[in-house]
C-alpha cells in the first residue's frame, strides 16, 4: 500500500527519528512504512493520522487511487 508519509514528514521538516519518537516506534519502522515494505496495523495507522492531524485516507492510498494518481 502506497502512502504520503515521506512527503508529509518533509512538510513538517521532521527526520525519520523525529517521527519515530512521536509515534513511539523505532526509526526502522518509520522507514519500512514509508518505503511500503510494511503496512501498519489499524491502531498504528490511527496514531500516524493523529500525529499529522489528518485522516487515514489522506495518508494511505488505496491501490486504485494510486493507479489513478499515476495516470
Amino acid at each position, binding site marked *: 500500500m502506497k502512502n504520503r508519509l515521506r512527503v508529509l514528514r518533509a512538510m513538517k521538516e521532521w527526520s*525519520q527519528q523525529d517521527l519515530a519518537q512521536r509515534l513511539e*516506534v*523505532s526509526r*526502522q*519502522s518509520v522507514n519500512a512504512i514509508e*518505503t511500503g*515494505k*510494511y503496512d501498519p496495523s489499524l491502531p498504528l495507522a490511527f496514531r500516524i493520522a493523529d500525529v499529522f492531524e489528518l485522516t487515514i485516507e489522506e495518508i494511505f492510498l488505496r491501490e486504485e487511487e494510486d493507479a489513478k494518481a499515476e495516470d
Partner: protein
Amino acid sequence: MTDGWIERRSPGFWIGAILGLMGLIAGLSVIDAIGKTTSILLMASTGVLLYPLMKAGERCEDRSGTSSPAVRRYNRGMLAASLAYIAGLGIAVWLTRAAGLEGPILWAIAALPILPIFAMIWVMARYIMDEQDEYLRHLAIMSNMGGLALLMGLASLWGFFEEFELVPHAPGWLSVPVWALGMGLTRWWIARSNRAEQAGGA
C-alpha cells in the same frame, strides 16, 4: 588493547574471531596437539566472546534504528541462554569422558544442554509478547521463519542424502546453530533490502 578498540569492532569481527578460534582449536585437536577434553573446554571458553559480539550487535541496532527495551532484554536473555548451552555441553562432554558415567546419570547429563535450548525459545516467545513496536515484532517472526526454513530444509535434504548413503551422518545438536544461522541470515537479508530501498527512495 583499549576499550575504544574493542568498541569499534563490528559484529562480523567477533563472529570471525569465534569461528577462527574454533577452527584453530579443531585443527589442533585433529593433529593431536591437544586432547579431546582440552579442545572441548577451549571451544566452550570462546563463549566469552559472545558478550562483545552482543555489544557490537547492539551498537548496530542503535545505528540502524532497530533497538527497543524489549530488544535489549532479548539480547541479554539470549546471551545467558547461549552461555548456559555452551557450559552445559562442555560439562556434559567433560563429565562423560572424565568420570566414565553410565546408566541414568549419563542420560541426565547428556540431556543437560537441552534446558538452555528451551530457555532460548522462551526468551524468543517473551520478546514477541513484550515488543511494543509491531514492525520489530514482524522482523523477529520473519527471522524465525527464515531459521525454521533453513533448519527444516537442510535437515530434510541431509536426511534424504543420508538415506542414499551420499553423505555422512550429521549430529542432531547441529540444529540449534543452523536455526540461529538461518535467523541471522534472514535479518541480514531484510536489513540489506531495507538499506537498498532507503537509498533508492532518498
